[in-house]
């Protein structure tokens, strides 16, 4: 008996009517298909330019619809906004109990080590900032013990409310933006495109990078179709939309 690879490929060829390949398991030899040419009449791009007011407005609308928390800030105000959000994490006001409520000392935040240091400049003293990289990765159990993660992003799609991370040093390993309960994601307005094809073509420059497409916090509708937000990923997603970079 030949090996599985040879045999499966021979079966596929037989199914497509290529002679000399034997038959499929049920003894068939198929006919060669004649596929129609692939039409590409769909929109390759939207009518609005990347970063235009229209796409920003649409992105915000979609993100709010997904129950992400949106903060539109200038680049100068970004560090203060990050600081405020991180400070809020130490308070008891959050509806969702933290996995590690004993962190009275100072909030522990993980950042990919390529993150712009300036973004963290306003963090209150005592904030415990942990850096993660491919070379020095934190084990999952340690990531489980941090309150929040701050990352940049690669591209965002306004029509679908999608933010894509590609694992570069300012966005970090996939585990970093997954295990902590709160994700602060910084998106520059000029990174926002209108349509999925625009984003895919941009990402296609580096298809080998591990991509995470995020469209709101995780959600399930598995129980009587009742939507529950925040299942396994970060239960809270803050999107910081930065203009004027």
């Amino acid at each position, binding site marked *: 008996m030949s090996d*599985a690879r040879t*045999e*499966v*490929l021979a*079966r*596929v060829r*037989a*199914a*497509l009517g290529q002679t000399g390949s*034997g038959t*499929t*398991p*049920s003894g068939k030899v*198929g006919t*060669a*298909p*004649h*596929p*129609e040419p692939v*039409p*590409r*009449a*769909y*929109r390759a791009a939207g009518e609005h330019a990347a970063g235009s007011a229209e796409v920003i407005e649409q992105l915000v609308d979609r993100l709010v619809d*997904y129950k992400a928390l949106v903060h539109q800030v200038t680049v100068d105000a970004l560090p203060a906004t990050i600081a405020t959000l991180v400070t809020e994490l130490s308070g008891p006001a959050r509806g969702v109990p933290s996995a590690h409520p004993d962190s009275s000392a100072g909030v522990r935040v993980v950042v990919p080590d390529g993150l712009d240091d300036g973004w963290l400049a306003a963090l209150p003293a005592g904030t415990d900032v942990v850096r993660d*990289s*491919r*070379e020095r*990765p934190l084990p999952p159990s340690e990531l*489980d013990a941090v309150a929040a993660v701050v990352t940049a992003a690669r591209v965002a799609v306004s*029509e*679908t*409310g999608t933010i894509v991370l590609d694992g570069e040093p300012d966005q970090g*390993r*996939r*585990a970093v933006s*997954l295990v902590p309960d709160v994700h602060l994601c910084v998106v520059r307005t000029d990174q926002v495109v209108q349509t*999925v*094809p625009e*984003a*895919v073509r941009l990402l*296609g420059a580096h*298809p*080998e*990078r*591990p*991509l*995470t497409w*995020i469209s709101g916090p*995780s*959600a*399930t*509708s*598995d*129980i*009587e*179709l*009742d939507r529950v937000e925040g*299942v*396994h990923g970060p239960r809270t997603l803050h999107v910081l939309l930065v203009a004027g970079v």
Partner: protein
Amino acid sequence: MSRTFLGLPRTLRRPDDADARHGTPDEPFGPVPHPQEPLRWGDDFPAAAKQTLKNDQLRRNLGHATQVIRTKRAAVVGEVPDWEALRDTGSAVKQQVMAQLPDLLQQLEENVVARGGVVHWARDAAEANRIVADIAKVKGADEVVKVKSMATQEIGLNEALADEGIAAIETDLAELIVQLADDMPSHILVPAIHRNRSEIRDIFLARMGDAPPDLSDVPRELAMAARAHLRRKFLSAKVAVSGANFAVADTGTLAVVESEGNGRMCLTLPETLVTVMGIEKLVPTFDDLEVFLQLLPRSSTGERMNPYTSLWTGVTPGDGPQEFHLVLLDNGRTDVLADEVGRAALHCIRCSACLNVCPVYERVGGHAYGSVYPGPIGAILTPQLTASTGGVSGHHDPNASLPYASTLCGACYEVCPVKIDIPSILVDLRAREVDADRSSRGVDPWKTAMKAASWVMADGDRFALAGRAATLGSGLGGRDHAISVAPPPASGWTRSRDLPAPPRQTFRQWWAAEHTAPVEQAGTVETEGDDR
């Protein structure tokens, strides 16, 4: 030559199956025991449907769920100006994939290997299960975490791993519910749709082991109990098993589309990842993702985009699993591919839109189809996948009745994001089954054929569509009369002008060859509005 593995030698269903499927006192949650054949369990469709129709709870849940998803889908599809163009491209790309499959598979393999992955080929379920079990054993794992995957359900991977002492933990909430209840999924997308919240609470309390004793039946609390239960599993698992929604031949990239984040956990945290994928799941180029990542979420959950999509290419040093195995699975697919008409079933991207619009599915539920693939797509895919062990070959095989699990109303074709002409394939398979029956038994083919069809079409009470006109949209509402009055035997088809004939020429050609009476021209499905 190996034959497609289906768990058991080819046998007819045991007569006592009908009792077993309704549970025993010591199995409080399982109306359906784990099948030995994931593509062939329970009674044949008409008999199984008669049973499930008695389940009012199931019908209520399903009716609600399919209506909600239909409405959401219609809204998000309606806002895409180029939806039809995307469908046209999706359909054509899938045709290209099938035509170039040998080259594309080898290209995929080459690219995955170049990026540090290992590619395995599996002729059948047994071979695929063997590969996964061996990897888990080499890694010393007695537990693997799993992302919901149709392919691994189809091959009965969990049961095969259990036989080797390896526990497969389902991490999708609905799959977890189904697994804890020792039950079978009833819908591709929302597998626990047949369970309500209080049943789910009872299942968690009885079976989860670490559920809080005061657990309520509020969905949020139930979901958080599952989160806590599964997080420990994610943090400690050494091996994860997933399926794939798409595999890109020209880059070696794999894609998993999901909602809950359990997929990201499985694809990211364990050191070793094994992905089991049917050989048909390819797309030629990375850019093709721009089509399918638009089509799938809107068709599936009725969302503009699903919460999380993960794409990875082989191994990324320092990020995610450092060992990646891809298992390319045949298990009957090449038999489907060999069928000139039926091969279009392999274009399916498993969105489940056709289930949600199907009046038969909504009534009888997923379990009646006796396969992990229920609904309209199941009715064309299951008999073809099992062709080498019977499948479409006459009334010896329970799967041969599946092509009759339809009224041919055409709604499935209207919503299918890759434009699979399910009604035409159903008719083609019916003809095949009738032919097989005639040659093997010499009995009146119509008697056999219409036995199944008559169940669907004859009983106005059982199949009252009238009340559904408002919710289903124009596609089906006007059809209730025609469907409910169609009399059992074949004559009903020629007498009832309203009963839609499928649009494909093959049906009429076939009909003309079989009958002297011409078919009245019926409306084409193109003109029947779907719910857009």
